[in-house]
């Protein structure tokens, strides 16, 4: 692996606290250009906290976070969007009082190129035709699956270089999960690097190149996703198979 692609995101020994709660305990991880990397772990392991620290919603107490080679610790979330660091948050974060189209256009808030925005809007509708049918409907009236489609399409409107996805499969029927992950694969093939947080380890390991396993705020182990699918520790704890 001497000609491995450049590192896009690099966390070194990151510690995050909520008051007295030590939520991330020295987390280090790396995402290289073009990869899909997944972060799996149980409820409360610190997955969302990790993403929040990366995208500027939380400031780590110590440690280093580098994106494209530059430190982004302390940068406000809205300034990172224009640099291609885009998050589709847990729970989808759809604005219920805004229409589907308004939600999508808000995703392009940091952009000024009108023709490009129009093109990407159309692309979003091509990827998820259901959104096109519902473009003037209020976001709050969409089903859970449609909201997740909207969340992903909206994140794409920002032209991400690195896309952070927080539990896109949460609460969705298996068929919809398939649709969503087929899209994740397609987005990655177009060159977008993805950091995927999931509780559904089964799906996550199938649709990623590498994986990190997080427990109680610490990375327990990591490796190639294909290998981890057969790892007895993962099988026992995250794939629901006895050892």
């Amino acid at each position: 692996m001497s000609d491995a692609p450049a590192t896009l995101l690099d966390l070194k020994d990151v510690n995050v606290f909520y008051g007295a709660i030590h939520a991330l305990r020295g987390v280090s991880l790396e995402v290289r250009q073009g990869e899909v990397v997944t972060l799996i772990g149980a409820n409360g392991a610190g997955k969302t906290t990790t993403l929040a620290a990366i995208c500027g919603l939380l400031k780590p107490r110590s440690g280093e976070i580098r994106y494209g080679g530059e430190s982004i610790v302390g940068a406000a979330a809205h300034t990172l969007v224009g640099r291609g660091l885009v998050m589709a948050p847990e729970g989808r974060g759809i604005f219920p009082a805004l229409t589907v189209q308004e939600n999508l256009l808000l995703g392009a808030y940091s952009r000024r190129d009108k023709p490009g925005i129009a093109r990407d809007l159309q692309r979003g509708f091509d990827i998820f035709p259901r959104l096109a049918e519902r473009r003037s409907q209020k976001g709050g009236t969409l089903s859970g699956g449609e909201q997740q489609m909207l969340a992903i399409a909206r994140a794409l409107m920002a032209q991400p270089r690195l896309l952070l996805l927080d539990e896109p499969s949460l609460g969705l029927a298996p068929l919809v999960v398939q649709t969503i992950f087929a899209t994740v694969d397609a987005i990655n093939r177009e060159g977008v690097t993805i950091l995927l947080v999931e509780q559904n380890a089964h799906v996550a390991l199938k649709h990623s190149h590498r994986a990190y396993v997080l427990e109680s705020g610490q990375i327990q182990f990591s490796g190639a996703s294909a290998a981890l699918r057969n790892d007895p520790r993962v099988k026992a704890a995250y794939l629901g198979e006895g050892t």
Partner: protein
Amino acid sequence: MLPLLETSDLATRLLQQCANGVAKGSVYALVAVGYTRVYGVLQLINFAHSDVYMLGAYFSYYPAKWLGYMPEGAEKPKVPFYVLGLAFLFAVSACAATGMLIERLAYRPLRNASRLSALITAIGVSILLQNVGQMVFGADPKSFPRYMDQESVALGPIAVADTSLVIIVVAAAMVGALHLFVQRTRTGAAMRACSHDMRTAGLMGVNVNATVSLTFALGSAMAAVGGMLIAMDQPRLTPTMGLLAGLKAFVAAVLGGIGSIPGAALGGLLLGVAESMVGAWNTTYADAVAFVVLVVVLLVKPSGILGKSGREKV
């Protein structure tokens, strides 16, 4: 406020009171939109908003008085319209700046504190502004110079003061423009997004602090226009003039449905008309109408007429 036409016809009198009420209510609406937008974004009743309205009255009064000086003995001296325009611009920009400053200094440090702390701070800012007003402007009532003939315009069977017509037209234009801005523009969409969920709005690339600032600037500008219109119509400016007007505008915002601009407009108009009706029957009860309305709304439909229940912040 206005002389009634000599008529015994009840319908005409009611219509006349309606017209008076609409003028009154237009000013409530102008002030109410500020309460409603700020509450929508920060879940904060910005008590200082009523004092920004008071400042708007003074900030338009002084330029009009100084620039609009008329030579002695001029017949029916009036402030020329360009002076009114300058007074308007000054009041609007000075109040917008004041509103932004209040947010920056008093509310932003409490953005993540309990809403009660912010509320108490808002009351403190309000008292501070009133006292500064007493010091700077003096407690003696001031009166805005004449700018119109103050004649009645006959509209069918009723008569409406020309100054009231100005109030209605200006207020409708301002509130309408604000509504279009919030509903139709990119920045307006960002404001609506912030009022649902600031964190997620930030993830869209929206500069939340700038958006909150803008919310205060716009709301304060509207209050300034309300203050100026009242100053031009009712010749008594005092540093505490915001107290009652602000309270009524707040009731108008709750009545219409807090968070909603059309709601604030509707609430303002309804309250103004109700007050005028009651006032025609017994003037001492007119001021009580707002409080009765507040209690009834909170009991019957706390989300207001146009408000959506369950649109609380997540």
